[in-house]
């Protein structure tokens, strides 16, 4: 592949950025950034959250205008005033949050805004459907019906529709912003095939991702942004994971998953035959003090639903929960909190944080009645605790504790959610995808924090889609499929193979009984 690429490099880049800079108010987000993509090249773009990747993508796709520097398309200087200009110049973007209309069909979404027309401007639906079919077929998506409503599709299918939509603009350059962030392993493999076939057709791809294996499997070149500066661009053959990570964070990371030895104590949470709906069926397990129990499973296997049931958001319909030996009934998050449970939810923007509120207001939210037991809010105590938590967890906020959390990067937002729950002094901490969308540096910090908390006797349940994370961090791994437990694997026996096999296994409780 490398030699193949050498030939292609002889081609002119399709799009080239030179000396691009961009500021928001006093904050310089991009400083003198240069970057280019050739036709048929996959160029991976790496960087921590807040490094400037999104800004760069938005300049390329016409949503922002650069303050300085040049952008060239096929050697011609260009300025995009709108996203439409970028589309017209052959640049299309598939964003992390998919921007489709759930109530419209696949074909309608693909051609929204540029439907094929018949005489007198009427929309040619026959042509639209046929063209949509062709586009999907060219992506090897024969299983997607063009008349299905988007709302009924899975995340992976929606993403393919987004890609088809991008291609419908005759894109020469496709920007993919963390395309695999919410996909299962199987869908990732399929997406990678799609990306390769696009490359083979001469489409240049800017591939933004945190996941190293994908980058090494796909990319021809890799560029690393840090603090708004382009640190380096290299051929993938000249890069290895450790160098890339140290380029991203500006320091080397000793160990990615530092689960330390913790003393495993007495059981704090005993769950037996817990049920709620289709995705929580007959779940039984025991969680001990100082233990990290990983929960693995494919998307839709019931991992999050189990957490929601434990936390009283979707209360159990049957089964028993014992906290510190006492049978309890948990009907609301408030009751769960009072029993010493804490839940850091999957979607931090929607469920974890009130983004318009400040760091200190978010931090005190779960423990508001304990922090201010009287009639009035105890602002002094709130500020004191916030300053302490920000310092202890290393939350980076320019404006201090009064900064709205919506302005923080993903990793710092996640730290705020975790800190909020630590303020309740929980015995049992449930973390749902604690490092999703979090950059490498913050990820390591969160892992270190988990280890530290476990060593102090906290019992932790960690739900994660990332196998290396589950295997690296957990003392035991509970594997779920279709709402049932399909395996309980000890740390010593946990390998990607054993856990992966259990993730697709059928529950054998019936045969065992």
């Amino acid at each position, binding site marked *: 592949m490398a030699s193949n690429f050498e030939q292609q490099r002889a081609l002119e880049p399709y799009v080239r950025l030179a000396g691009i800079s961009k500021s928001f108010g006093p904050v310089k987000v991009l400083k003198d950034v240069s970057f280019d993509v050739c036709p048929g090249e996959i160029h991976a773009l790496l960087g921590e959250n807040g490094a400037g990747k999104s800004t760069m993508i938005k300049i390329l796709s016409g949503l922002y205008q650069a303050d300085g520097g040049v952008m060239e398309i096929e050697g011609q200087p260009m300025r995009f005033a709108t996203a439409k200009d970028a589309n017209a110049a052959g640049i299309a973007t598939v964003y992390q949050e998919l921007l489709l209309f759930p109530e419209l069909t696949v074909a309608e979404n693909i051609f929204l805004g540029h439907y094929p027309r018949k005489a007198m401007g009427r929309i040619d639906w026959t042509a639209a459907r046929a063209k949509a079919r062709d586009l999907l077929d060219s992506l090897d998506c024969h299983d997607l019906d063009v008349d299905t409503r988007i709302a009924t599709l899975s995340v992976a299918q929606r993403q393919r529709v987004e890609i088809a939509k991008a291609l419908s603009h005759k894109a020469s350059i496709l920007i993919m912003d963390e395309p695999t962030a919410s996909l299962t392993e199987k869908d990732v493999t399929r997406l990678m095939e799609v990306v390769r076939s696009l490359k083979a057709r001469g489409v240049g791809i800017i591939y933004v991702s945190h996941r190293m294996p994908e980058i090494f499997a796909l990319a021809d070149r890799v560029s690393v942004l840090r603090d708004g500066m382009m640190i380096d661009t290299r051929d993938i053959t000249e890069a290895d994971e450790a160098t890339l990570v140290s380029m991203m964070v500006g320091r080397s990371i000793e160990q990615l998953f530092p689960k330390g030895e913790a003393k495993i104590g007495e059981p704090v949470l005993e769950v037996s035959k817990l049920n709620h709906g289709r995705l929580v069926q007959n779940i039984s397990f025991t969680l001990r003090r100082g233990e990290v129990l990983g929960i693995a499973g494919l998307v839709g296997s019931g991992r999050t639903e189990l957490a929601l049931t434990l936390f009283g*958001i979707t209360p159990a319909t049957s089964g028993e929960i014992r906290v510190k030996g006492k049978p309890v009934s948990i009907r*609301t*998050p*408030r009751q*769960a*909190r009072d029993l010493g449970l804490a*839940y850091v*939810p999957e979607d931090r923007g*929607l*469920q*974890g*944080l*009130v*983004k*318009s*509120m*400040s760091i200190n*207001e978010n931090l005190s*939210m*779960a423990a*508001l*009645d304990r922090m*201010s037991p009287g*009639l*009035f*809010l105890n*602002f002094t105590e709130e500020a004191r605790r916030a300053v302490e938590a920000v310092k202890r967890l290393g939350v980076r906020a320019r404006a201090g504790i*009064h*900064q*709205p959390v919506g302005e923080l990067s993903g990793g710092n937002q996640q730290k705020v959610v975790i800190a*909020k729950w630590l303020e*309740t002094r929980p015995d049992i901490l449930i973390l749902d995808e604690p490092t999703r969308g979090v950059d490498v540096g913050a990820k390591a910090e969160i892992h270190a924090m988990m280890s530290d908390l476990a060593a102090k006797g906290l019992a932790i349940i960690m739900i994660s889609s990332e196998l290396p994370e589950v295997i690296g961090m957990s003392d035991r791994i509970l594997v779920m499929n279709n709402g049932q437990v399909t395996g309980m694997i000890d740390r010593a026996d946990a390998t990607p193979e054993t856990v992966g096999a259990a993730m697709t296994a059928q529950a054998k409780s019936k045969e065992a009984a």
Partner: protein
Amino acid sequence: MSLRTLLRHETILALVAVVLLVALAFQSSQFFTGANLLNQGRLMTEVGLVAIIMTFVIITGGIDLSVGSILGLTAILTGVFWQNLGLPLMAAAGLAIAVGTFCGFVNGFVITRFGVPPLIATLATLALYRGLAEGISQARSVRGYPDWFYVLGQGNILGVPTQLWILIAFAILASILLAATRIGRSIYAIGANEVAAFFSGLPVNRTKIAVYTASGFAAALAGVIFVSRVSTTRSDMGTGLELDAITAVVLGGTSIYGGRGSVIGTLIGLVVIQSLKNGLSLAGIKAEGTAVLIGLMLIGAILMTTVLNKRRA
């Protein structure tokens, strides 16, 4: 930040209010007199009480359209309890206020228990409570209250209209409640992100029920003051009051999407509207003209919040 932007909106609105007062003072010599201003305060109280709690409701992301009907129902009940049931007037008024408060509780219960959108739930109770008021009154009005009762709506204490004292006390209490207590913080959190508030263990439903109940109480209290001010009860009292209250709240910078707003903003909004109505009519401009002007100001206020928010983002 939220405090700073709020203050910005309110500062601008306060400046507008000052300019307006000065301009109106030049238009008519009767406008800027102590007697006239105090009288305007008297007229403003009923909408004011309702608007203060409406601020709470709107900050939670809800709305209460039934306040005008609750006011009407309370007014009717005060008369009926006193005249037809023969209760002492004080007890009759107290009982009527209790019923009005319960009406607010019903709103909150329906909204939280059955998940009905506040707009629909209170639109339904708007019709329901007004219908009850009309049914109970049988189109008869009750008059002839004892003189002491008129102190509330027509009298003065220390030279200031009695009900204006009530409004001031109410406003101070509400400001403190919203800015410095747990329930106030919960109200903002629920409006900004109800799911996150619930996931954080805040008592979402309890807070909402409390807010709608308080809204019922404010409307009921306004109803009794109304009766005392106009010396009679009629079942159509308070018709359209909800719109005046919402106008004041939104003009005062409270976001109709929830999560943002303040009592002081609502108060300035009330003053602006009341002085426009009064000043322009003194200057000989017809009521239709005033309505157009208020509409334009509302649009201006919303544009201003949007621009301020965009700049911040």
